[in-house]
């Protein structure tokens, strides 16, 4: 029996040295070559097959000249092949850069042009969209994976050498590439598995897209320990997800709050009879209604229900809170709890650390999980990563406080960054992108409630309303679907005085009012200073 990595739960494994990142699947493959490792409902791979495929892809990458430090971009898809790719890249010492394949081509092209990947691997069959470097399509990937490759030693990473880059929304109008080192990731594995407690018997429900760092938590971490992972790629509908949880005998469920809420439904489907194996439910990435978490805790008292928190910049997850029991009287969200082992945290207000319960300040998170920095944005890195007493801290911009038990509670943001269905969206990025269209003089972006949830609303100030369809197609070229406004309103430039923000605030308040009494997606400002719905056909006809 080969030892598992030191982040295993079994104390017998704790003394082993951590494997090289590119070797994290070797132990399970040697121990259980024929055991099911990953399945997406259509195809599956055993641990032996996974390791063979890693060798094959690493061999091919190496033939393409991929060397330590080289970036390899993936146009990702939720499927069984995906976990092979980061491990193969790490075996070569490269930097794994998963991108959202559903992003508009212009956005993807701009990201690729920035990171200059040596290789781009597309999990779909699109034509190449990046002229430099080597392009690998799905058919070729399938062919490479089917031929066994040579065994090769794994590359070693220098202390500050990045292992992956994940893109996240940025206020400047350009996505920010968060660079996480191999040392960050190995520390994360050890720190977080103390809470997750994946064992070789675990069966994990993986629903996070691969361009989202939780996919490392719900796929690569459990696979490194010999656990089974189901890649859920079907409709995010409650009945389907619950049926799959039961059918796959899932023990560990990790889902952003929006998805957990959908899975919960009216709560009647969450019972020990339907989910006999479920040991842990972890949610986070956005504020979760305590009633949703209460359903799981009260229906499945023996199951650990955990609220997790972590900016991409501090390697996936850095805080967690386990519900001691369902608190049915609770109206505010559960705390994000305490830092993981190896993570340090302070709440800072006006340059001073605060520790009195209830006092709010900005959460700073420090220690071994703090990112290397933002790719090609040293000024942004210098602004947000600060050293205090020899420890590097990331300034999260999240406003937090301590509760009476010493747990940290998330209170809100100090800027216009929002979470929509678990995705981090900087409203400033949408605003900057809208301003990039000629004819748009000013723009305001806000969340507005509609149909029981918040949607993005954009107000453009321009000479004429016919700018609306142009701005919409401009945004569709540059922003992923979830960042595009559901409501677009036009205001003539004359109505705005020079003071900026307050006027924008007033306009947004008026739009919010107008949106209450109309389900239209378009509004225009009348001479009387109120927003009135505009006909969709009228707007389309402006083109």
């Amino acid at each position, binding site marked *: 029996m080969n030892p598992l990595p030191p982040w295993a739960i079994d104390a017998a494994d704790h003394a082993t040295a951590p494997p090289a990142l590119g070797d994290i699947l070797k132990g399970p493959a040697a121990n259980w070559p024929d055991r099911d490792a990953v399945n997406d*409902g*259509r195809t599956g791979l055993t641990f032996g097959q996974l390791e063979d495929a890693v060798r094959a892809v690493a061999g091919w990458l190496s033939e393409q000249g991929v060397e330590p430090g080289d970036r390899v971009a993936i146009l990702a898809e939720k499927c069984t092949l995906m976990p092979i790719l980061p491990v193969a890249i790490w075996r070569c010492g490269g930097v794994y850069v998963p991108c959202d394949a*559903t992003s508009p081509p212009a956005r993807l092209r701009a990201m690729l042009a920035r990171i200059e990947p040596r290789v781009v691997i597309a999990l779909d069959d699109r034509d190449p969209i990046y002229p430099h470097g080597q392009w690998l399509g799905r058919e070729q990937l399938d062919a490479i994976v089917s031929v066994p490759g040579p065994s090769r030693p794994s590359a070693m990473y220098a202390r500050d050498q990045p292992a992956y880059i994940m893109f996240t929304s940025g206020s400047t109008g350009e996505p920010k590439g968060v660079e996480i080192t191999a040392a960050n990731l190995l520390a994360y594995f050890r720190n977080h598995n103390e809470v997750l407690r994946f064992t070789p018997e675990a069966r994990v429900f993986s629903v996070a897209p691969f361009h989202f760092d939780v996919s490392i938590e719900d796929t690569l971490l459990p696979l490194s320990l010999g656990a089974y992972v189901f890649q859920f*790629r*079907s*409709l*995010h*509908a*409650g*009945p*389907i997800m*619950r*049926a*799959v949880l039961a*059918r796959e005998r899932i023990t560990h469920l990790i889902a952003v709050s*929006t998805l957990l809420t*959908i899975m919960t439904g009216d709560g009647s489907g969450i019972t020990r009879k339907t989910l006999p194996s479920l040991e842990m439910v972890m949610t986070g990435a956005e504020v979760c209604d305590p009633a949703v978490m209460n359903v799981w805790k009260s229906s499945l008292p023996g199951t650990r229900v955990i609220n997790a928190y972590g900016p991409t910049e501090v390697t996936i997850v850095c805080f967690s809170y386990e519900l001691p029991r369902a608190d049915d009287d609770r109206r505010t969200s559960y705390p994000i709890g305490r830092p993981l082992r190896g993570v340090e945290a302070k709440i800072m207000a006006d340059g001073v650390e605060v520790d009195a319960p209830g006092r709010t300040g900005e959460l700073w998170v420090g220690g071994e999980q703090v990112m290397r920095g933002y790719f090609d944005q040293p000024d942004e890195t210098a602004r947000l990563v600060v050293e205090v007493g020899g420890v590097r801290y990331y300034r999260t911009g999240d406003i937090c406080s301590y509760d009476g038990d010493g747990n940290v509670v998330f209170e809100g943001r100090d800027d216009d960054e929002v979470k929509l*269905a678990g995705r981090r969206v900087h409203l400033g990025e949408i605003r900057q992108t809208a301003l990039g269209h000629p004819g748009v003089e000013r723009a305001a972006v806000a969340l507005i409630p509609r*149909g029981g*949830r918040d949607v993005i609303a954009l107000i453009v100030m321009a000479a004429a309303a016919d700018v609306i369809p142009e701005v919409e197609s401009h945004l*569709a070229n540059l922003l992923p*679907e*979830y960042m*595009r406004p*559901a409501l677009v309103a036009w205001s003539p430039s004359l109505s705005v005085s020079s003071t900026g923000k307050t006027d924008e605030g007033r306009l947004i308040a008026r739009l919010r009012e107008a949106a209450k009494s109309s*389900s*239209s*997606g378009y509004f225009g400002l009348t001479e009387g200073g109120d927003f009135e719905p505009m006909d*969709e056909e009228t707007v389309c006809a402006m083109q």
Partner: protein
Amino acid sequence: MRDAVRELLSAHLEEALGRPLDLTEMTEDTALDALGLDSLLTISTLVDLSEECGVDLTEHADTLETPQALGDLLAITAQFMESR
């Protein structure tokens, strides 16, 4: 059959969007977000459709994927209608 599929789908989409919608002029590659449908609305529409057609969604767990274009939605609607 083709018209019946469009008719049923447009009734459900109108309810989801809360406004009238004319599918007759639209091509199958029309992106759903251009109609104002995000993924959450799309999925709730499909759940309603499956209920109306008496389809057990869970039996389709491994074949359904989140539709991106009108044609994908029409294909799923047709699949539901055939199995009712």
